């Protein structure tokens, strides 16, 4: 058996794959958080709940309506996105002129309510969501065995992250979004409907969280707690990448997933800690984050 630093290469690659999968979810979630924070200046504490909502909507569609994974890939982000837009219009839009603390408290409260409702009806135990038959099985890469669904998650998340990045950096809508992040009043004075842009942006962030949720359903168990388990790490990712930095959120998401995977191989006891250790070091050396612009 091939060894690297005294570790069998299969074990190393296996953990790197797990890290890459986790990193895929970190990247998609921190991307949405960064987009929302950049424009709305709201730290969206409900992001984990929206991710859980996405997974649950997928699960309920399957169990109650027999609607399978592929249609759910479209329906779930749509549903969570529309839910997000309704929340923004009904509540968040009224908080922008107040202290940012109100937005934080509101989204935190909303997360508790959403999770509470699902806990009330479904308890805390996980519900399995079968891997869709199209993506079942695995592929032997020669050096390791790759479950097809996991490969799909990595590819899908890359496509989503790159697509969102292109949308923001290369399109006209994206230029409105970047400009409004710098100076929303001036952009609105030019005739751009900035309030609508804010609604769409929160909707986009929510839809990304929902999509991550349905992608995660066959990997992790669908449970009301799945969001709060993940969101703390995702917040650390956003801080390390630099609040509001789109590219920072994506790259840091994958990097930290891989860092966790590597730690699991070489020093498993620290694998849950490594992200926060990195966060502390980054905050000490570069408080604006790895990709953040110094204010």
């Amino acid at each position, binding site marked *: 058996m091939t060894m690297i630093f005294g570790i069998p290469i299969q074990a190393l690659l296996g953990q790197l794959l797990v890290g890459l999968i986790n990193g895929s979810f970190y990247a998609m979630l921190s991307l949405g958080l960064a987009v929302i924070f950049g424009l709305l200046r709201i730290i969206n504490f409900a992001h984990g709940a929206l991710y859980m909502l996405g997974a649950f909507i997928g699960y309920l569609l399957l169990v109650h309506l027999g609607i399978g994974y592929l249609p759910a890939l479209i329906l779930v982000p749509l549903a969570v996105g529309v839910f997000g837009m309704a929340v923004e219009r009904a509540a968040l839009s009224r908080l922008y002129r107040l202290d940012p603390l109100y937005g934080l408290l509101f989204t935190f409260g909303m997360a508790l309510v959403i999770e509470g409702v699902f806990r009330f009806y479904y308890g805390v135990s996980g519900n399995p969501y079968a891997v869709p038959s199209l993506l079942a099985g695995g592929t032997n890469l020669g050096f390791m065995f790759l479950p097809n669904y996991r490969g799909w998650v990595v590819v899908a998340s890359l496509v989503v992250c790159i697509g969102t990045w292109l949308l923001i950096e290369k399109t*006209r809508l994206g*230029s*409105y979004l*970047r*400009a409004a*992040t*710098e*100076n929303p*009043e*001036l*952009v*609105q*004075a*030019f*005739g*751009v*409907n*900035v*309030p609508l842009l804010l609604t769409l942006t929160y909707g986009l962030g929510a839809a990304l969280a929902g999509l991550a949720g349905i992608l995660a359903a066959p990997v992790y168990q669908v449970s009301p707690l799945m969001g709060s388990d993940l969101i703390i790490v995702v917040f650390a990712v956003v801080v390390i990448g630099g609040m509001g930095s789109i590219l920072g959120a994506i790259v840091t998401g994958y990097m930290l997933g891989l860092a966790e995977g590597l730690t699991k191989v070489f020093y498993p006891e620290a694998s849950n800690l490594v992200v926060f250790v990195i966060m502390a070091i980054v905050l000490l050396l570069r408080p604006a984050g790895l990709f953040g612009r110094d204010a």
Partner: protein
Amino acid sequence: MSEPLLAVRDLHAWYGEGHALHGVNLDVYRGETVTLLGRNGVGKTTTLRAIMGLVRKREGSVFFNGSDLIGLPLHRVAHQGLGFVPEERGIFATLSVDENLVLPPVVAEGGMSVEEIFDLFPNLKERRNSPGTRLSGGEQQMLAIARILRTGVQMLLLDEPTEGLAPVIVQRIGELLATLKKRGMTILLVEQNFRFAARIADRFYLMEHGKVLEGFPVAELAAHTETLHEVLGV
């Protein structure tokens, strides 16, 4: 005389509790260039921002083309045909020169095309892919004006376009405004430098303490020089 294009009536504005405008009245007729003069802090910028709706707490009337802009959401104002070039220029750092240029939506026909604008501002074309804030101060001012010219607005609100710029650039901005005026653009200009303004303005308004004191045509500028020196402290 016909109806003014812009008629401001008894306009008040507040920053928090601070009362910044105390009943501003002014008229700008179609095709005119009108300059608002006054010392630092008298409320010239606030007047422009209150006309646009950028100052939230305001009272009075702002008639444009006969309809009152007070009460319109901020993003509807530009669509009435009013373009704004802020004092701080408002060039976006995360947008390229090109993106800055096409950011404000076209609100009416008759604006310049990007090609025409690049003919007028060749250095913007050379730097079209660099971030907007990498331009020099003068180029940023050109860009701030150029991007409004694309939108087809009938009237420009220009806040101190020559502030802090070298004489050569001031000269170029003067030529640009003269060109715009020839094309029929209506301009409300805030300017400290009244010798610069005298070359293009048809009329002046003098502001003090959040109010417009008096208005006079350019022909009477000489008769007013003493008052101006006194009020402007130049």
